[in-house]
């Protein structure tokens, strides 16, 4: 419950900053791991680096001493990042019809198409809108 509230709180914080993402930003994800697991990482896993992918295994090997909140938040972060990465990969396809309808003259590259879709917020709906929200771009 606390985990859900924290996650909801962070997403709400994102909302008030103007980033109405349905997933955590990568910065929020990192902050959440640091908050919930940082003390345990420094205490039990100080020889492991976050980029090796071995931190979770190390924390599990000290399961009795690591707060359950850490495992819950770490899993939530992985799920959120997976969702965001998938949405970012799917965005072009999911928005194909909207791009053709509203952004046909826009040169692709350098974020031009996204800018056009953002400018077309009033009309972009459905799957495209949801994917852009999940991608953290809308």
């Amino acid at each position: 419950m606390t985990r859900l509230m924290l996650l909801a709180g962070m997403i709400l914080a994102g909302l008030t900053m103007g980033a109405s993402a349905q997933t955590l930003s990568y910065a929020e994800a990192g902050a959440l791991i640091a908050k919930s697991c940082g003390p345990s990482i420094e205490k039990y896993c100080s020889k492991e680096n976050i980029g090796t992918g071995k931190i979770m295994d190390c924390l599990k090997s000290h399961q009795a001493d690591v707060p359950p909140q850490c495992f819950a938040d770490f899993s939530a972060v992985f799920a959120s990042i997976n969702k965001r990465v998938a949405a970012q990969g799917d965005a072009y396809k999911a928005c194909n019809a909207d791009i053709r309808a509203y952004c046909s003259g826009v040169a692709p590259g350098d974020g031009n198409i996204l800018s056009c879709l953002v400018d077309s917020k009033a009309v972009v709906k459905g799957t495209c809108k949801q994917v852009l929200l999940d991608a953290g771009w809308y």
Partner: protein
Amino acid sequence: MSSLIRLASAAALAAALCAPLSLPASAQTATSYGQIIQGLTAVTTDSPVIDAQALRNWAQNSVAQNAAIPPTQPEIVKKLFSLAQITVQIQFALNSAIIRPESYEAIGSIADAMHHPILWNYRFAVVGNTDATGTRAYNLKLSQERAQAIVDALVTLYRVDPARLEAVGLGQEALQNAKNPDDPINRRVQIFNIGTLKPMPSAQ
């Protein structure tokens, strides 16, 4: 400073993109998503091409020959420093490449910028620098390991395509403040936009 002019050229775009975020005008270290995008987007078609391996080789040779630190920056460093760039503060454990948890968020902010469509087709060099405390060889090795640790975090945790990233350690070979080699300002991680991954798509 030509880089300032080039930054300004991208500022309007970045400002539009990051309107909800407030951008401190004179921040030395990029911390917010908006600042990072702004710093890394300032690319022009005449930006020099940088070969990360050539940079690593240059730093290694400089250490191996124990060459005196030249009073002016060598050409390859000048070229690197002319690219769109940001400086970030990342906290590492003492004399180690272990990233401290307090810096996971900062690396996440870099990932947020790299995952944005405006930077999607670009490659980046993550460059580690030390001050002149300690031996040159040790500093070179530590800075390379730290740069690699940041790249690993961007790839493994934050899922940035590894083909877009190069880790380069320059040790104390490219001091920001060469007049005062022990100045902490020399200890820094810089991220440079080193050009496109694939040719930019053409208009359809």
